[in-house]
């Protein structure tokens, strides 16, 4: 048996202390050890984006990050996006413009979109499409996802 590592990670501002195997991925720990199941796992190989989270302010696929690498670092997941009942403008626009169907890709898409708007508050359609190219969605055909992101961007610029 491999010895487990003792790790401390801040997730959405809360400190979590846990034991994990050295080979355990961040998405595995988030979902199965910390029971934060909002982050989804669609492929485990970095190809679908369902597991997108922010690590130290950078967008990453949490299936490609080992949990031990996040010791002492901060992670943001979908569970931290709304502040209480106050939805992020992205979340609200996805609801109003139907930017989701089944919703399995949605947490990852929202995290990635938020990262986009943090660097580029006024993205073109093309910029939005290329930024989100790492997030597979099989339901929507992307049209309403792109529209939701651009509507949220406009709202946030106005606010």
């Amino acid at each position, binding site marked *: 048996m491999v010895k487990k590592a003792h790790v401390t990670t801040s997730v959405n501002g809360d400190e979590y202390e846990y034991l994990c195997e050295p080979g355990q991925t961040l998405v595995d720990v988030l979902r199965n050890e910390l029971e934060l199941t909002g982050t*989804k796992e669609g*492929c485990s*190989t970095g190809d679908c984006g369902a597991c997108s989270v922010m690590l130290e302010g950078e967008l990453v696929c949490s299936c490609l990050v080992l949990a031990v690498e996040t010791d002492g670092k901060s992670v943001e997941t979908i569970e931290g996006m709304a502040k209480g009942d106050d939805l992020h403008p992205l979340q609200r626009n996805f609801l*109003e413009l139907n930017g989701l169907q089944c919703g399995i*890709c949605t947490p990852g898409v929202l995290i990635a979109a938020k990262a986009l708007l943090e660097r580029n508050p006024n993205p073109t359609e093309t910029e939005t499409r290329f930024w989100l190219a790492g997030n597979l969605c099989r339901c929507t*055909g992307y049209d309403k996802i792109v529209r939701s992101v651009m509507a949220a961007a406009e709202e946030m610029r106005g606010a």
Partner: protein
Amino acid sequence: MATILEDSKFDAQRELNIVGTNPVKHDGLDKVTGRAKFGADFFLPGMLFGCILRSPHAHAIIKSIDTSAAEALPGVKSVVTRDDFPDQPAGSAAGDMTRVAMAREKALFDGHPVAAVAATSEAVARRALKLIKVDYEVLPHVIDPVDAMKPGAPILHDHIRTKGLDEPNDNPTNVTERMVSKMGDIEKGFAAADFIVEREFDSKPMHQGYIEPQGCVAEYSKDGQVELWCSTQAPFVYRDRLSAVLKIDAAKINVQQSELGGGFGGKTGFYPEPIAIQLSKKATRPVKMVLSRGEVFRGTGPVSGTSYKIKMGCTKDGKITAAQGELIFQTGIFTGSMYFNAPNAMFTRYDLENVYIESFEVVSNRPKVNSFRAPCVPQIVFGVEGVIDELAKKIDMDPLDMRLKNAATEGYTTIYGETLGPIGFVETLEAAKASDHYKSPVPEGQGRGIGSGFWFNRGGETSTSMNIAPDGSVTIITGTADVAGSRISIAMMAAEELGIPVDKVRITMADTNSLGFNRVTAGSRTTYSVGMTVVDNARECISQFVRRAAEIWDVPEDAVVFENGECRPAGQNAGNFEPLSIADITKQTTMSHGAVTASTSMNVTGAGPGFGLHIVDVKVDEETGRTDVMRYTVVEDAGKAIHPLQVEGQYQGGAVQGIGWALNEEYVYGEDGRLQNASFLDYRMPVTSDVPMIDTVIVEVPNPLHPFGLRGVGEVPVVPTMAAIGNAIGNAIGIRPRSLPMSPPKLLELIDNADR
């Protein structure tokens, strides 16, 4: 209970307040905040994790399986193999389902489950898999269905004899069935033609591509009761099939559906679920199983690949006189491809008299196919619409006009024997013709194509109930899966009927213990059928409101009317009473009379066929063979769009799945019979930057048999996509591709060899 609500026919005069608007869907909030629970999101105390050992061979006798070393590994709580499943005769329905779940005599495809382990963690379970020794005797395999039909091909099942032959024989074969579908006189039809085009086409299997892999938790309790939480399109069908496969009473299996992270047909049949149940039974603990993406590709049903010929003839003025098809469908290793949809749907939308279609279904060493939007139809329509375009060119007719000239209308009797009621194909074609897209000139350097498609739409067995709470709010219990947001549309129909805000209605997706049988969510049946039962329930509740109001006012029932969510006196003579809202009535009468509730079980009929036409502009890079979709418009008859944004979403999602199928997606097998591209990296689905905005035109020709006029909208959007793109590429490069996917290497070959 009647199969159609006799008094629920469509009423064009009715004023609608909620139907046709776009409220936020009730399940949306949980989905944007990460709270929604999908198949992999359940946990139970004491839960184990299960993993599957899969065959590395496409075809091999399993001589023995030694699990002793795996069982001895600390943390391993149970191991199951074929010996842990009841014996079911090969070739029976339960026999095939058992063998899909777990290989028995032979491993029949690369990725076929041969054993499974439940352990205290996934890591331990994976280590244990490596300790299982399987002694295989490798046999010759066959991947391509045309090869599988040839004399001398390896015979994959001893029991298959081709059904439907004119002269039946007793020869073992890989051809499960032959079917002939015909109308009129095909010879006469071709004799009347001025022009005839005959072409050969083929298509590769694609995967449904849902982003959520299959996930479940099974708990087999000591008294033989099974609880199963899983991601499924068909909780009741899973229950009944598990009952058949595992020989457990259906009433002892309770299936609770999770949120469904995409299915598109691929979650209409189970994969890890029976294994999880048997692992749990042996371990006496709950077992969770979640497939990896590689397992999803290797082990779960893709879509039928095909090889086929289409021959059609028309007169000089564009009337199609004859249409013929010879179709070969690969069904994977077991029968059940639903290939019969193709002859029934491939030409249906055209007013044809003379049709002859011969279809074959063939097994090969691949996973059994599973359904996908309009199963088995889009890949054939790819060829049909290509041939029609060629005919149109021969007579120099606009391709849309050619389709209009031949469009079926009300009263046409289809090849499957149904006489069509009011349908919207002509209206759809006219809307396409009037669209900005079709009217605009084709941009320089691009090609434009169109394609049209049809789907029957479905009804089927549906049970729901409605409970009015004492405060007047409403819960609806459904047993169908919500694949893309049908809950909001169902709630809207209930709210419209009851005259209350949609937010006062909540829907619970029940487990299978809580309702009567509900058929699978597939075939564009759910919003339609569940809508019917919900309207029926609402009307029953309204009659109870009226009865109770009459009692409160002490007037006869016919002196009370229900309008806009209130009971009022029917007129001056009925008395002078303040209207009573639903909440007024339930508050006053729940204690004395009990709750107002209604339940309905019916086999819903009367689904209205759907028709679509797609217009697409493409640019083909003749250096690389890459195709870019520049502009796309979906025109489709919804009957009535209950929630237009949802309907648009169906159109757009279907079109983009079709773009993937048209340009990239395929299963690639090596000489060794193993799947070579079992990952999202190598099996490339469209990403955001691959596609443009998808414009939509919602045509509304009401289905007269539905209270709000709706038809289904889930299947049609993918039916014409590859056809339209094929025609567009043909117009761009001067030669129409006839093999799907139209991937860069294939297009390059076409461009290089074309004598243009």
